[in-house]
Structures are given as structure tokens and as C-alpha cells.
């Protein structure tokens, strides 16, 4: 018997497969307070969410006679709510947790040391992945008892829950693999985080959107688009699974609706591929680090960088300082750094694609419809605000991380002056994105696709968006030691009041507050403005060049505020925004000198 047990233990000992990294990760993570905070916060938010859904679905209709039917209805809605909450919430947690995984090792220069031990690259990658996934699974498991209780009410079939959990799991693993893949070659964890968010949004959001547009344009059968998307897009597949659970139809293994299994298979395959490439690159990154070079992007700036021992390095490359020092320094790290051929090709391709897409939309007369303007402007707004938040959230913490912060603080620059420099520097760095938006608005209003009234409102909205993004980012940056955390908090804060809070309020049924919150959101505002001003219809009604307020319908929740009313409303929001930004500024200033030295 003992031999059997030893054999079993030999083969099933997780350490054999994952190596000491896994062990170390678990040890360290159990010591981190933030993990407990995370878990508690997650459970609390989920309970709040469940409670709200419960209140919404049950207590409203308690007088009705058919209690059983009601309960089963509530059961279904609660289950859906939990499933979707976990699907979205855990992905956010996964991305923020995984983005620091390999970075931490590279930053503390331990990865190179690790590779001098007999640990294999695979063990490092798998160890990192599994240890973080284990924490995610623990969060996922927290909902199982709740789901089991809800099952008592009846309504939802187990195979739906199994399908939903499987999709969630594979998506989490995929997200994790994407983060690890990016984190091997990227220098800073907040960049990994930002890049992972962008990649996932493009992969799961923009590309499906393009597919839908193309399908619609070419009049292709919808079924094929649906099949393609169900295989590669977890949001779509979870939606389809939910649909078939709601409106009948089996989704079990035997039935024809087991497309979700194919989906999971494909996602796992892609994940495995990503992990393989990551494993191969870990070693390279680590070796580069051991050689004393800071690990940089693979696409990165190797050439043209003066070597250490070049006695008289090229002095012409020195750039003289102009203007305020902090602003100047912020701008030394431009939005896109185009050094290597690769980067030039990439940038050219992206620009060409955008130009082609613009050309095609104009050619197809799409730009005569407001929906495309809304789409473009909202995407620019989101991209611009996101990028600005990333830059601002990193502005202070990255100096804390590199320990260059104290030596800046011993200069006679005032605290307000330092923040001012960071604000201006960050805004200017992300100017190109806003420039695209500005050009879009100006060119299309010049050629009669958008009513020029847009040029009154949009600048105000952009200004508000930028100020809000930069100051909220700086505020959280001043409060944190690590950039990744600052970025997560910044994004969560915005997601909180822009999406989660209105959703919760919506469930709780308070509509005035929702309308106010949504109207205060610069992205939504830009949508309203574009809906009112863009497209041929809005331009042809009335001779707008002389009376721009004629015929424009600004639809704020079914109420047409008109040009003047909208202007006043936006001014009001600007005042609110400025007050909020002052609060952010003051918080940032009071915390500027904290957390200088790590414990």
C-alpha cells in the first residue's frame, strides 16, 4: 500500500508539474493583504448585485397569485445575473492580476536568477499561470453555493450552468495567457495591463463589430457570422447559451446546440499556443536581462541606441530642455515611439487601414448616417480617455517604482507645480488621439456631413473628458505605490460610476439618478451630440449655416433640450467636473510626498 501512495503522490504532486514557482507564488499571495481585500470586495459586490436583482425580480410582484412561477422566474434571472457578473467581473480581476505576474520578476531582476536554477521556462510560465488561476477559480467557486441555493427555486437547468462556467473558465485562461504573452516583452506592468485591455477590447469588441458591419454591407447570411463569432467570441457564445436556456432548447452535450463545447476547445487551443510562444520568449527576455540590458519590447528600439562604451556617443542626439522641466520630461516618452522598422510598418499599416476604412465609409455613403459618426466619435473618446488615464495613473507611481521620485521632490518645485507639469505633460502626450477626433469633426462638418453646431459642444466635452481622465488618474497615482494598482483603481472608479452604478440603480429602479449619471458621462454626451448633429438628415433640415439651432434634436433621455439647452447642460456638467477635478487635485497634492520609501 505505501508504495501505491508514494507512486500516486509522485504523479499527482502538483509541484512536480509546476515547480517551486507555483509554491512560492501561493506562499507570497497568501501574505498579501490586497488579495484578501480583493476577495472580500468581490464577494461584497457580488452579494450587493444579487440582492439588487432579487429585490427587482421578486419583491415587486409579491402580491401575485402564482408564487411558484414567480420564484422560478426569479431563479432564472438571478442565475443569469450571477453568470454574467462573474464573466465580466472575473475577467477584470484576471487581467489586473496577471498583468503583473512576469513583470514583477523582470522588474526585480529575479527572472534571470530563476533561470540559473534548473527550473524550466515552462515551469515558470505554468507556475505563474496556475497560481493566479487558482485564485480566480477560488473567486469563481464562491458563487457555486449561491447558484445551488437558487436552483432550489427551480428554473435553470444544470447544463446551462455548466456551459456558462466552462465558457467563463476558458475565457479566464485565455485572458491570462494574453496577459502573460504581453508581459514577457513589455517593460512595465501598467503597460501590460493597458495593452491587455486594448488587445481584449479589439479582439472581443472591435473585430466582431467590423465583422458585423462587413456582413451587413455585403448582405452575407447572418448565420455564418453567428457561427464564426460563437467559435471565437466568448461574449457572443455566452449570450447564445443564455438565449437557448431562456427560450428553451437543450444545450447539453448530446444536443446539436453544443457549439459552446467547440468554442471552449478552440479557445483552449489558442491559449495553449499562446503559452507555448510565451514559454519560448521568457528565456530570451530573461537572458537579455541577465546581460544587463533592460528588457524592452521585441519590436523595440535596439538599434540606434548608443552603446555603453562608445566614448564619444553621438552628441547631436541630445535634446535641449525647453519650457517647464516636468512637462518636457513627460514628453520625452511620446505616445508612439517609432524607432524600429517593425514599428514603422505596424504604424503605417494601422494608418493605412484607418484611411482605407474612412475612404470606404465615405464611398459607401455610410457617413451620411449618424450611426457611423457616433461609432467613430465614441471610439475616439473611449480610446483618448483610456490612454490619458493610463498615462496619468502611471505619472507618479512609475517614479515611485524607479525611486526617482525622492530626488525630484528635493528640488524646489512646488507640489502644485509638479502636478501641473504632470497634467500638462500627460495631456500633450496623448494629443494625437484627440487630433484624430478633431480632424474627423472638422473635415466632416466642412464637407457637410456633420452640422457645425458640433464644434460648439464637442470641444467642451473633449476638454471635460481629458481633464477628468488626467486628474482622476493622477489622484489614484498619488495614492498608490504600484502603477498597476493605480491604473486598476482609476479604471474601476470610472467603470463604477459610468457603468456599474447606473446598472445597479437601474436594477433598484431609480431612474432620475441613472439619467443624471449617464448624462454626466463624456462618452455618452458625445453620443448624444453626434446623434443630433451628424448625418445627412440633420444637415438638410433647415439652412443650418445661418441658424444652427434649427432642426437639431438633442435627445437627452427622450427630452429634446435643443441647442441652447444642451449648451447650458454641458456648461453645468463642466462646472461639476471642475469641482470634482479640484478634489482630485487636492487629494493628489496632499499625497504627493507619501509612500516615498518602500517598507
Amino acid at each position: 500500500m505505501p508504495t501505491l501512495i508514494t507512486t500516486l503522490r509522485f504523479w499527482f504532486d502538483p509541484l512536480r508539474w509546476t515547480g517551486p514557482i507555483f509554491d512560492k507564488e501561493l506562499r507570497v499571495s497568501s501574505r498579501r493583504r490586497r488579495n484578501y481585500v480583493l476577495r472580500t470586495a468581490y464577494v461584497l459586490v457580488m452579494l450587493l448585485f444579487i440582492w439588487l436583482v432579487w429585490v427587482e425580480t421578486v419583491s415587486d410582484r409579491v402580491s401575485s397569485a402564482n408564487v411558484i412561477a414567480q420564484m422560478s422566474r426569479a431563479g432564472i434571472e438571478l442565475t443569469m445575473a450571477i453568470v454574467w457578473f462573474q464573466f465580466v467581473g472575473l475577467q477584470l480581476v484576471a487581467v489586473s492580476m496577471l498583468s503583473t505576474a512576469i513583470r514583477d520578476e523582470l522588474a526585480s531582476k529575479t527572472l534571470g536568477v530563476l533561470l540559473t536554477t534548473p527550473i524550466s521556462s515552462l515551469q515558470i510560465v505554468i507556475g505563474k499561470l496556475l497560481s493566479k488561476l487558482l485564485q480566480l477559480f477560488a473567486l469563481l467557486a464562491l458563487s457555486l453555493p449561491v447558484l445551488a441555493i437558487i436552483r432550489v427555486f427551480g428554473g435553470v437547468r444544470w447544463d446551462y450552468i455548466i456551459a456558462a462556467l466552462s465558457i467563463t473558465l476558458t475565457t479566464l485562461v485565455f485572458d491570462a495567457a494574453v496577459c502573460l504573452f504581453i508581459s514577457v516583452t513589455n517593460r512595465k506592468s501598467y503597460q501590460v495591463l493597458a495593452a491587455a485591455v486594448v488587445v481584449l477590447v479589439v479582439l472581443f469588441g472591435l473585430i466582431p463589430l467590423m465583422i458585423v458591419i462587413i456582413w451587413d454591407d455585403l448582405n452575407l447570411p447572418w448565420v455564418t457570422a453567428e457561427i464564426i463569432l460563437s467559435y471565437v467570441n466568448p461574449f457572443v457564445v455566452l449570450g447564445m447559451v443564455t438565449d437557448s436556456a431562456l427560450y428553451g432548447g437543450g444545450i447539453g452535450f448530446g444536443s446539436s446546440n453544443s457549439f459552446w463545447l467547440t468554442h471552449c476547445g478552440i479557445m483552449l487551443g489558442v491559449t495553449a499556443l499562446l503559452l507555448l510562444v510565451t514559454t519560448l520568449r521568457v528565456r530570451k527576455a530573461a537572458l537579455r536581462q541577465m546581460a544587463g540590458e533592460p528588457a524592452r519590447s521585441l519590436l523595440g528600439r535596439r538599434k540606434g541606441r548608443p552603446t555603453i562604451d562608445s566614448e564619444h556617443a553621438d552628441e547631436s542626439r541630445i535634446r535641449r530642455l525647453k519650457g517647464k522641466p516636468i512637462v518636457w520630461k513627460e514628453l520625452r516618452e511620446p505616445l508612439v515611439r517609432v524607432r524600429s522598422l517593425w514599428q514603422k510598418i505596424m504604424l503605417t499599416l494601422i494608418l493605412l487601414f484607418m484611411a482605407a476604412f474612412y475612404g470606404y465609409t465615405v464611398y459607401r455613403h455610410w457617413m451620411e448616417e449618424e450611426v457611423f459618426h457616433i461609432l467613430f466619435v465614441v471610439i475616439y473618446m473611449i480610446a483618448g480617455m483610456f490612454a490619458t488615464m493610463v498615462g496619468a495613473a502611471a505619472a507618479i507611481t512609475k517614479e515611485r517604482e524607479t525611486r526617482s521620485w525622492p530626488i525630484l521632490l528635493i528640488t524646489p518645485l512646488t507640489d502644485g507645480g509638479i502636478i501641473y507639469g504632470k497634467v500638462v505633460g500627460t495631456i500633450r502626450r496623448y494629443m494625437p488621439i484627440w487630433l484624430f477626433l478633431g480632424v474627423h469633426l472638422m473635415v466632416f462638418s466642412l464637407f457637410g456631413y456633420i452640422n457645425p453646431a458640433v464644434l460648439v459642444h464637442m470641444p467642451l466635452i473633449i476638454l471635460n473628458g481629458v481633464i477628468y481622465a488626467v486628474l482622476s488618474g493622477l489622484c489614484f497615482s498619488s495614492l498608490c505605490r504600484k502603477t498597476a494598482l493605480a491604473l486598476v483603481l482609476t479604471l474601476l472608479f470610472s467603470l463604477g460610476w459610468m457603468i456599474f452604478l447606473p446598472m445597479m440603480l437601474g436594477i433598484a429602479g431609480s431612474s432620475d439618478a441613472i439619467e443624471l449619471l449617464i448624462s454626466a458621462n463624456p462618452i455618452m454626451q458625445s453620443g448624444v451630440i453626434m446623434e443630433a448633429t451628424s448625418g445627412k438628415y440633420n444637415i438638410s433640415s433647415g439652412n443650418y449655416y445661418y441658424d444652427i439651432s434649427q432642426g437639431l434634436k438633442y435627445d437627452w433621455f427622450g427630452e429634446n433640450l435643443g441647442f441652447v439647452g444642451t449648451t447650458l447642460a454641458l456648461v453645468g456638467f463642466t462646472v461639476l467636473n471642475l469641482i470634482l477635478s479640484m478634489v482630485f487635485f487636492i487629494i493628489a497634492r496632499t499625497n504627493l510626498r507619501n509612500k516615498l520609501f518602500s517598507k
Partner: protein
Amino acid sequence: MIRINALTKKYGELAALSNLELTINAGDVFGFIGPNGAGKTTTMRILATLLTPTSGRAFIDGHDVLTHGRTVRRLVGYMPDFMGVYDDLKVFEYLEFFAAAFGIEPRKRKGIVEGVLELTDLQSKKAAPVDSLSRGMQQRLGLARVLIHDPKVLILDEPASGLDPRARIEIRGLLRELKKMGKTIMISSHILSELEEISDHVGIIEHGQLVFSGTLAQLRQRAGQQSKVRVRVVQDHDKAVELLSALPQIADVHREGEIISVTFHPGQDADGIVARTLVRADIDLIALEPEQLKLDDAFLQLTRGLVH
């Protein structure tokens, strides 16, 4: 120039500094010495306005560090024990950035930066990225940065750590230069002998308290109260030992081959009596040399080597 009164800094239960008292005169090179965790870095951070003390006060040139932070920052050049460098700047750009941060006029910046580059012998690295410099070069760059606004007071936290012997000597030369320029320099180290040549005054800190402050001579006197001489005689070693042991001023006589070590009682520093005694007894004296107590021994005697 620097005055510290009853300075206390607590990290939770642990008192990194407890009622530290310290004065450094203008123009002095003050060696601040202590074992690991003694509180050197903490003291210097407080002086550099980066850390708020739990209680007590500190003044630089009469300005309270706590309440007049900006004035103090103009007066002080602080070089931290571990310095972060910006990834994307070149040496010249880095220094010009700090010149601008210290409010030096744009016209003068280039000249000043060239000046400190020359002083720290970094001209050849002018266009090198800061993060490509070796440890020693970065240390020198740190010194260059500290000098950029021509501060009256330099606070240097272990500037020589991580440097090779040649670089250490070079830094020492640089510090001597700076002393000649009339700067007040506070420099910390674990190693007393390293500061021996350049510092006029030393302070030894342990457990956040100053256990000694004074000149090097005073330190030697305090630690080496029991002075020793080494005596060499041709023959009659045993007789010599016997004679010397009988003297009331002498605490201990100890023979190792040719050499006899004589330790006096504290306060008794009478080399003469040894020579006289031996000569009178017709013992041929070849050499008589006072044995200098090494500074590091003094350091060890003063500190208890307890680490918290």
C-alpha cells in the same frame, strides 16, 4: 550649519531615531558612521525634507526643515543611498532637467551642466543614456546632480558604496575639492577608516542615538584610552618582560617572539619610562613604537553590534 534637536522617528513600535542630537559646523566634512539599521539614512532623509520626524526639530542654516522645506531644498544637495534614474534621458538631459527643476535660468544651464560634468569627469558620457551607466558612473552622476544648484550643504548617503577602490579614491578626491570650495558635507558610511582622510568630524550613531561626536583625534583618544607600545630588544627578552611588568603604569606585557607589546593603564601614556627602564638595565633597545589603535577598532568598541 546643521542642527538636530531631540529628533525622533518611529516606524510603528520601532524607533529608528530616538532623541538624536547633532550639530555640524559650516565648512566641516562630517562623517556619519553607524552599523546597518542605525538610522543614518533616516536622519538624512529628514534633513532632506523627504521624511517627517515623529518629534524633534532639525535646522539647516537656521531654517527649520519641517516648516521651510522649499528654502532648505535650495540649500541642500541630497544624494540618496539608492538612486533611481530615468530610463529615457541622456546624461546631459538628465542634468539639464534638474538644473531646470532647481530654477536655473535657461541661458546658464548649459554652462553649469558642463561644469559639473567636468568636475565629476563625466564629459565623455554626456550623450549616454542614464540607465546604461555602470554603478560607479551612476554614483558620479548622482554627485553631479547634487552639485548642479551649487548647494551650501551636501548630504551624501553612502556615496562610495558599490564602487571599486579606484573610484573610491576618486570620490574622495572630489570631496576634498568640494571641501575646498567651502561646502558643508555630511557623508555616511559603515566604514570609519574610509572617511578618515577626508572628514574633520565624525559622529557615530547606533540605535538611533549618537554614541560619539567629535574630531578623529578625540575619537582615538576616547576609544584608545589604553595606548600600547611595541618594543624590540636584541636579547634578554625574559628579563625585559619581567622589568616592565613590575612598573606600576603598565597594565599588561605580552611577548611574541622578538616583539614585546606593552599596554599602559588608562590615561598613562609614558613611552619614556619604558625606554628608561630598559636602558638602565643594559638591555639593547632596537625599536620602540607606539601602536596606533585602528579606527575600526574604535568603532567596534563604541558600538555594541546589536542590530534591530
